């Protein structure tokens, strides 16, 4: 006998993600799920962005084993909670639920730095307001074509290491058309976390969203 089920396999994860959304709402947080390859510059972009944003910012650091990135945050007195996934290639909603419990933070922007990977994190909602993909010139211009799911799910794309453009065979048009096909609405911010180029425009975009959120809350 066949029984129709028609249920999303991610149901259990998504139910906890909904709980995280409630927590985020009640604390007035803008929660970003930052996804990118290892070495794309996720931590550096987050640090530079926090410098520009000022105000209350916090970080949940997802990493397989180390706490190198969260130490960088703590050195700058940024509230940070480390999640070590112990081998898992992505953060899931339950890991973030536990991290939120350990993070004292209200009315600010919370960056969730996912495990460096363009495949698995795309599948797991953690209760974020939206996903941001951080890609970089050094990775090449074909990333949207090779990892379409994550680009299709992001609200914005940050293209980091733009200072390397003169030294690399990176076809901007090819990269941009890939993003547009998957996600016509997503803005692409070209930045260099090293030189600071472009960080202001990207931070301003975030700031505007955060302020709208705060206004809607009042």
């Amino acid at each position, binding site marked *: *006998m066949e029984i129709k089920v028609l249920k999303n396999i991610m149901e259990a994860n998504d139910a906890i993600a909904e709980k995280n959304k409630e927590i985020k709402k009640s604390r007035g947080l803008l929660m970003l799920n930052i996804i990118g390859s290892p070495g794309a510059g996720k931590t550096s972009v987050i640090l530079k962005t926090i410098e520009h944003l000022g105000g209350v910012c916090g970080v949940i650091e997802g990493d397989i084993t180390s706490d190198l990135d969260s130490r960088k945050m703590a050195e700058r007195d940024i509230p940070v909670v480390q999640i070590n996934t112990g081998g898992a290639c992505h953060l899931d909603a339950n890991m973030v639920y536990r991290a939120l419990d350990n993070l004292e933070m209200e009315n600010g922007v919370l960056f969730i730095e996912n495990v460096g990977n363009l495949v698995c994190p795309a599948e797991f909602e953690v209760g974020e307001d939206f996903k941001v993909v951080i890609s970089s010139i050094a990775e090449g211009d074909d990333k949207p074509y090779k990892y379409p799911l994550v680009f299709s799910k992001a609200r914005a794309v940050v293209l980091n290491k733009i200072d390397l453009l003169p030294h690399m065979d990176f076809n901007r048009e090819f990269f941009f058309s890939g993003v547009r096909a998957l996600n016509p609405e997503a803005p692409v911010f070209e930045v260099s976390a090293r030189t600071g180029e472009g960080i202001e425009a990207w931070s301003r975009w975030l700031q505007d969203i955060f302020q709208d959120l705060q206004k809607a809350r009042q």
Partner: protein
Amino acid sequence: MHELAVTEGILDMVLNEAKKRNVERVVAINLVVGEMTGIEEDCIRFYFDILSENTPAGGAKIAVKYEKPLFRCTGCDRVFERKNFTFSCPYCGYPGVLAQKGVELYIESIEVE
């Protein structure tokens, strides 16, 4: 890569469903998976056989129906499947946009005894 977590989810849902309906034995599980998810059926089977041992779903067959991602042309409005390294329309060359197909990930049905 994340098939272990996904397979744990599948097994939990199937066992819940079986319990709810007082089913003694699940013999097959039919999944629908969008190709964009990158989920490999061999990986799911591998994990499933280990995880489901000594449960009512132990030894169940897993059938996966893959859905191809489809793109809609912004020029001629036709729907097409992409070729590698391009999202452009094969008919007129205009850029395509994702038609929200190929991202499915759900259990369609289970077969029980």
